[in-house]
């Protein structure tokens, strides 16, 4: 190798390193911003209600529809309730629904997908046709059907979102299990005497867990969105419960009258956690990518 080659190789190495360094720093920045936003959101939801002894339901008709200011940072609604407080309480309910629904949907979807993928054959075909049939129904419609069967409340909304959202997780998990199942390490486990259960639990499920966890995380904002949609339609939570959907629904009239804050702030409370979760999930996906990890290791 000549000196020029060495110099060129060295240069390429430097360029490559610095470029990757840049990418890493923007990734870290994104990670930090998203993590900070999510932390603020979660902390406000967890800490504000017990610490701040203010009544979110306190009506003050003299102060109705005040624009954002010092006394009310997010303004007030049409009966003079403080919107910042209402938004925090609303987010609390929406997050509860989002997390509970996402967890339930992921557990159901993983169980169904792993069963179909691990057993294969007619079980797989049967289960996946049911999944296809359920997916062909618009899921908001099916969600409305489910909430309509119960009294309004948090758990019917959780059930409605969870029971309509396990389908995509089931598909992801099944596809992943099918691809893992064809690998020689599963053959080796079968040949080593492992039962079907052991192969599934010890070798297949750990392999699909990162995908399932990612699907669960991404489903949290989606479930929040669904709660808002159902509440907006008047089918979700009872109207006296502050939820982001209810807040937007109540504020529709005042938007037409030129009062923008009662819709803007609850809307932001949906958008910001959604973006933060999506950003975190993306950064995590890059981090857990086993290929990039193994390249570092080898």
């Amino acid at each position, binding site marked *: 190798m000549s000196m020029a080659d060495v110099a060129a190789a060295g240069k390429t190495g430097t360029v490559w390193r610095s470029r990757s360094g840049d990418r890493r720093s923007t990734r870290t920045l994104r990670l930090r911003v998203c993590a900070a936003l999510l932390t603020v959101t979660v902390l406000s939801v967890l800490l504000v209600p017990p610490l701040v002894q203010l009544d979110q339901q306190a009506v003050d008709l003299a102060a109705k529809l005040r624009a954002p200011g010092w006394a009310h940072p997010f303004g007030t609604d049409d009966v003079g309730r403080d919107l910042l407080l209402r938004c925090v309480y609303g987010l609390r309910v929406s997050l509860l629904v989002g997390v509970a629904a996402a967890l339930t949907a992921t557990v159901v979807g993983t169980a169904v997908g792993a069963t179909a993928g691990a057993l294969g054959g007619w079980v797989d075909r049967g289960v996946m046709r049911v999944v296809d049939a359920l997916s062909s129904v618009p899921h908001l419609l099916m969600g409305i059907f489910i909430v309509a069967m119960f009294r309004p409340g948090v758990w019917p909304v959780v059930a409605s979102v969870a029971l309509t959202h396990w389908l995509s997780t089931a598909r992801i998990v099944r596809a992943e299990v099918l691809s893992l199942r064809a690998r*020689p390490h599963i*053959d*080796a486990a*079968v*040949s*080593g*005497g492992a039962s079907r259960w052991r192969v599934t639990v010890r070798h297949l499920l750990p392999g699909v867990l990162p995908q399932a966890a990612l699907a669960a995380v991404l489903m949290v904002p989606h479930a929040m969105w669904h709660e808002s949609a159902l509440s907006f339609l008047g089918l979700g939570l009872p109207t006296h419960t502050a939820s982001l959907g209810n807040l937007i629904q109540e504020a529709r009239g005042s938007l037409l009258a030129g009062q923008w804050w009662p819709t803007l702030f609850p809307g932001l409370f949906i958008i910001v956690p959604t973006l933060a979760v999506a950003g975190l999930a993306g950064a995590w996906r890059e981090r857990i990518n*086993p290929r990039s990890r193994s390249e570092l*290791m080898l």
Partner: protein
Amino acid sequence: MLELRTVTAGYDRRAPVFRDVSLSVAPGEAVGLLGPSGCGKSTLARVAALLHRPDAGALVLDGTPVRRWRHGAPRALRTAFGVVFQQARLSADPRLTLADLVAEPLRATGRRAQAADRVAELAATVGLTTDLLSRRPHEVSDGQLQRACLARALVLRPRWLVCDEMTAMLDASTTAALVRVVEDYRAGTGAGLLAVGHDRVLLDRWCDRTVEWASVVPTTRN
């Protein structure tokens, strides 16, 4: 006696990988199967190790035809075969340390108590040091990983060994070491061996008998 009688197998019934292949391995015998890549010898090895159900034909084990495959086959029958695959990296669960990898068949068959002793014994046999045993597959070389995979195949003391291109990705010294381990094991237990490969020199030196793929497939078809 391990007999494959006019076996047709593949991944699509309309287009099998091979048709009517017959091959037999006597107990204690080492048979090398030599063939070009893509001819179906790996599929044949999987059929022989009860890992792939053939479309037609029979696998007769000690005079009894095998009727069920993979999980359907009784555990005692499945574990009578030790299988070593070509690509160690794909045949090792990336989450297990090499010690867990070797001990996995013992745990899966409820012999957890023996695991530590047996792993230590086999690690010494295949030439794995203690610090390698605590590493995961991506932290060791192909050769080291294949040593662990061979140890895993031997851990349940199988009566039959199926080595599918076991040494295709390895250097000469590792190849020699692994072949030596297999031969020592066979000398000690009288196990039969089906070694699949494309390296004539290796199979001729390793096996009692080397058969060409062309000679196990009927000439009128394929």
